[in-house]
């Protein structure tokens, strides 16, 4: 793999950029692999990368029905944070955050991880209790965070409306300075390039249509281009996990829901952090290109259509105009939807299954992007050792039988 650097850029410029090598090969599938990763999104590519890099398993194929990083990796609002409430979730997401902090160098691909901080706003007394509780838990877990006042919020995001007279005044927020955003495509491409360099076959435009089993163990996958053998099959197909599970005769405690997002036209820098508000359902940051990147809430109904309902977008933009009255004159350039796996406890499933050699990594809900490196890291470990990585142990599918849920959204507070 030729190293990227300012120097390589200069060198290639002199030769009119005619000599750049391919970022990855376009191999024809082998007949047989040690591990097949189904799904060429960020999580799948990261899984393949760490399997090869850390566990020395290089006879791997990543099989993607469309193009690499074309699913939720390409559709999310790129928010990265680790200030989760429960120990299990917080530790998993913080592993991910630590990996983010060195990822551009690790991959020699600039993923533009921008640690501009994340504000989670509180609008009522219960919000503030929950924020206090979460920040205290984060602090004692070794995760950065503090509770900040409206005045401090206004310093961090000057255009935000901290008036006490607004319908849902901002009473305070949690502030995680290490949080931020990254360039979503770059994450997929960086991991793909890295994995390819380690010998991983990236097979695009190939759809897995079946999971072949023999005596309760995986032997390979049927694809739109024929059967490919494998001892282990790792499914990382957010949005379609249920469909994959059905291929192996399994069911998952997961429902696929539309999640929508939108961007404004590019504007000059006006928001140097990430602002999130659960109470009014709006998440916003500004990309390096200048777009205001806005995330909406999950639609209420099941849907694989990568489309949601317009009223969800309306509600989100109302929230944004409440938080940032000046943005009312900015214009929406593009909106789109993705399909997220939602779990009853808003936490992922990283798990072996009753089928020997079949593994699932799904259920990330709206939180998948930020977890990409950590998810790949612990899933690779789980697959390599056929045993849950310590940080993944709490996220097995069995928790839905025992009741040991990690209730991240229940923790957001219910009736009052």
């Amino acid at each position: 793999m030729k190293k990227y650097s300012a120097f390589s850029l200069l060198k290639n410029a002199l030769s009119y950029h005619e000599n750049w090598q391919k970022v990855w090969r376009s191999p024809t599938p082998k007949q047989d692999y040690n591990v097949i990763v189904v799904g060429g999104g960020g999580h799948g590519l990261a899984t393949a990368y760490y399997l090869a890099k850390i566990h020395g398993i290089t006879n791997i194929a990543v099989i993607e029905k469309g193009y690499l990083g074309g699913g939720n990796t390409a559709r999310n609002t790129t928010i990265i944070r680790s200030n989760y409430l429960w120990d299990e979730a917080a530790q998993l997401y913080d592993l991910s955050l630590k990996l983010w902090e060195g990822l551009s160098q690790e991959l020699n691909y600039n993923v533009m991880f921008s640690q501009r901080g994340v504000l989670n706003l509180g609008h009522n007394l219960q919000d503030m209790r929950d924020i206090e509780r979460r920040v205290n838990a984060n602090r004692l877990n070794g995760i950065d965070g503090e509770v900040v006042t409206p005045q401090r919020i206004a310093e961090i995001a000057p255009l935000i409306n901290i008036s006490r007279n607004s319908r849902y005044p901002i009473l305070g927020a949690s502030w995680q300075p290490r949080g931020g955003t990254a360039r979503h495509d770059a994450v997929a491409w960086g991991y793909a390039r890295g994995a390819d360099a380690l010998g991983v076959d990236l097979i695009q435009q190939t759809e897995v249509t079946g999971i072949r089993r023999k005596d309760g163990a995986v032997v390979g996958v049927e694809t739109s281009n024929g059967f490919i053998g494998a001892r282990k099959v790792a499914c990382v197909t957010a949005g379609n996990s249920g469909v994959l599970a059905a291929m192996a005769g399994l069911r998952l405690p997961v429902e696929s829901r539309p999640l929508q997002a939108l961007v404004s036209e590019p504007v000059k820098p006006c928001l140097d952090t990430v602002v999130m508000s659960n109470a009014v359902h709006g998440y916003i940051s500004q990309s390096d290109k200048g777009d205001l990147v806005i995330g909406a809430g999950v639609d209420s109904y099941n849907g694989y259509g990568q489309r949601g309902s317009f009223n969800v977008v309306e509600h989100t933009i109302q929230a944004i105009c409440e938080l940032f009255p000046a943005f009312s004159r900015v214009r929406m350039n593009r909106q789109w939807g993705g399909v997220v796996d939602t779990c009853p406890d808003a936490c992922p499933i990283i798990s072996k299954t009753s089928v020997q050699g079949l593994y699932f990594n799904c259920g990330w809900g709206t939180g998948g992007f930020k977890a990409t490196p950590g998810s790949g890291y612990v899933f690779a470990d789980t697959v390599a050792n056929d045993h849950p990585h310590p940080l993944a142990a709490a996220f097995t599918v069995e928790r839905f039988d025992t009741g040991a849920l990690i209730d991240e959204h229940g923790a957001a507070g219910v009736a009052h």
Partner: protein
Amino acid sequence: MSQNRVASHTGAAIDFTFNGKAYQGIAGDTLASALLANGVDVVGRSFKYARPRGIFGHGAEEPNAIVQLGSGAGTVPNLKATQIELYQGLQASSVNGWPSVNFDLMGLIGAFGRLMPPGFYYKTFMYPKKLWMTYEHFIRKAAGLGATPVEADPDSYDKLNQHCDVLVAGAGPAGLVAAREAARTGARVIIADEQSQFGGSLLASKQQVDGIAAPLWVASLVAELMAYSNVQMLPRSTVFGYYDHNFLTILERRTDHLGAVSTCGTRQRLHRVRAAQVVLATGAFERPLVFAHNDIPGVMLASSVSTYVNRYGVAPGNKLVLFTTNDNAYQTALDWQGTGREVVAVIDSRRNPCGEIVAAVAAMGIEVIAGHGLIEAQGGKRVKRALVAPINEAGTQVTGAVRRLDCDLIACSGGWSPAVHLSSHTGAKPQWDENIVAFRPGNSKQQERSAGACRGTFDLQGCLSEGASAGADAALLSGYGDGSPQFPQIAVEEYIEEPQQALFLVPHTKPTSRAPSQFVDFQLDVSASGIELAVREGFESVEHIKRYTALGFGTDQGKLGNINGMAILANALDQTIAETGTTIFRPAYTPTTFGAIAGRDVNQLFDPERYTAVHRWHVEQGAKFEDVGQWKRPWYFPQQGETMQQAVDREGLAVRNSLGILDASTLGKIDIQGPDVAEFITRIYTNSYLKLAPGKCRYGVMLKEDGMIFDDGVCACLGDNHYLMFTTTGGAADVLAWLELWQQTEWPELQVYFTSVTDHWTTATVSGPNARRVMAKVCTDIDLSNEAFAFMDWRDGTVAGVKARVFRISFTGELSYEVNVPAHYGRHIWETLIAAGEEFNITPYGTETMHVLRAEKGFIIVGQDTDGSMTPADMNMDWVVGKNKAFSFIGKRSLQRSDTVRANRKQLVGLKTLNAKEVLPEGAQVVFDAEQKIPMAMQGHVTSSYFSASLGHSIALAVVKGGHDRLGQVVYCPLADGRSIAAEIVSSVFYDPKGERQHV
């Protein structure tokens, strides 16, 4: 008279400024036409290389002329000059270029463009690691177009929910006749067009339609439509989104043509349209040709040049070179000739163009150079020269000597691309059609059909007949008319056109990688070489190319560039365009104001404020309010100079020592009637109601099926088959839906009816040792003695002359009566009680004091002391769970799961700080060992914490792992400021542990 204004075109003068310089336009101008009339060449700088850019198009497709309109709170970023109607005093400026668009220092960067190929930022700025944030800071400063306002939007917006039979998107020739055909059937029709005038391309046409000049024909048709009461006509209205089940959104600009800030009502209006049938008549965009330095000001679309000449009377230059691959664009040569200015030559990529219009042009003595390509434009801030050379038939190579043509205007046309955007929003995949060298709309996924140019039908005759049948067809399918158009044919005068050549990237003498930049997407500086580079680097799918090069991600959404980009990609991959894929568009068709999408649901109308009948009294008393769901509840009632703590202390002591009064009206109330009520609610609550007698109340907890506490409250038996259920304030709607769910879908055999009566009752709770005395003053027909009216009883009676229902239940632990009267009497009952209680110093208290008092008693608040992961056992409330109930109530089974029965679950306990004055922060985490290193082993957290005036020390409720077995143990709460507060685990009941006071 401005230099480029055609003498014959006159109108009222309009003054405006651009980049601080004063200019004059005339009525009917767009900012773009006025700037061109004034000979303004450079209107902006490109995003990446800061190259000077001029006006290229005349509508929504414009990639370059992006301006900042107005200033201050009313400023609007990123408007397209081609879409801004000129008004007196308009101020606009370029969004990029420093110190000015004519001399941009960033332009120097442009000189290093080769160092910034697509994706260069992925390849650098990585080392040293810590510098990225600095790099990024400068990258961001260079990015972005216009600037957002910094003050609140002074304008207002609103929405209309529309329902119609036929929605026609676009009021060009096809749309207008479609609307007419639908209108005459009586169907409800809405026709919307983004321009100020209906007519589309005909507004700039010199053709005859139905025997009269096109603009006149349009006027008559518009007049005809206006006469229909069943037609809604929406000019300045863009259909920007097409969603499921034929839901479409239209942005109507109501005042933008009058000024940056509205002086007469809502600035913009969002129409949310549910249409039975849709006719898409959105027209087409002319496609530029990709040649070297095709971005120099003075290069324009052929149709744009014609539009400026014919519609706005503006000739944007003097010496025109026309470069085309088709007959259609020859019209521009004729139009230009009409201005009396010079047509240097027409460059036609085809070997032997032979259409009627070609002959017409040649006949005027204009040189037609066939089989040639315009391979490069030259000039700095304005075109000076065009380089022309013979090219091979395939259009892939320069085959002969280069000829130089002096000119200051280049009009180009690579054919037309149907505006398939809206049909594409529905998920229909556009299909490539070699015959028209363009994508046609894909097969319909909704109740829609395309007509005219947006369907790839480019001749006027065809557009009119397609529009007519589309309108009649849509009407028929929505239940009107017989499907046959009244005017299937309309006589028009037009040239018969010969086939065009499929040419996208014009060859240069140098290979693409070395030729001067051949731009595909002007706004984002995506060039042909950039696309080829992306392919060279291994990106193969269209989506990868788009994302890697940013092709199509501009505010013009690639209306001009996408098809050329696809073609260049296909060529680089050695595929056909059809094989390479399709082009997908997403809403919004054109950028749409956030404020309009938000509508009126902002500021105080963002969410309803719900008031109780006594609300105004609380306001008059200067209460501070707390948001509880949508309700405004009194939080506390500060008196002169009181702090919150002082007010809460006073209110609490009043209740403990004499008398307090609380407005409890917001509690959810559900009336339940039917023979099976007792059985039903016994299945819903954890405890049993089978033996609850009329006149009695019982406290109950409900679980979700997962065994976790979901809501709680008192339920009263009003009579045989008749109960009243109280819920939490926030839970009322959810609980009602929950009851209906089980009755309707699971146990329809149980005969029960539910009705919400939350709003019907005002609930005034008098609480404290003097509660009975004050009740005795206002209620004579209830025996209030403890024997006759015991704790957890209720009685009907007359209070303050009003029929009332009185409950003897208590959330404070004191003797309490909850007086319920129909809300019309709410304030009367409240003020009567206040007056009657005066001698007992009756004290109104708010939610904060209520919380303190109930915490002193260890009563939980669902949602504060529980968080969706708490069982009754965790809350030390096993007593409320009916172990021996015959029916396995909702959630019961989950209480036996291995995790819910495990020891060491978090359990509700009291915490008493060792320093009695110290109040634990709510949300503080609990640890057993304060000295341990981070990460610490957290054992629970503080859910409620207050200073108790009546006890004289702080109290807290917390959930602690295995807490019920840890009474007496000291735990620690490490705080952010480094302190660690020590507290002892005690019973969660701090006050009157035997519960005697509520029974007196």
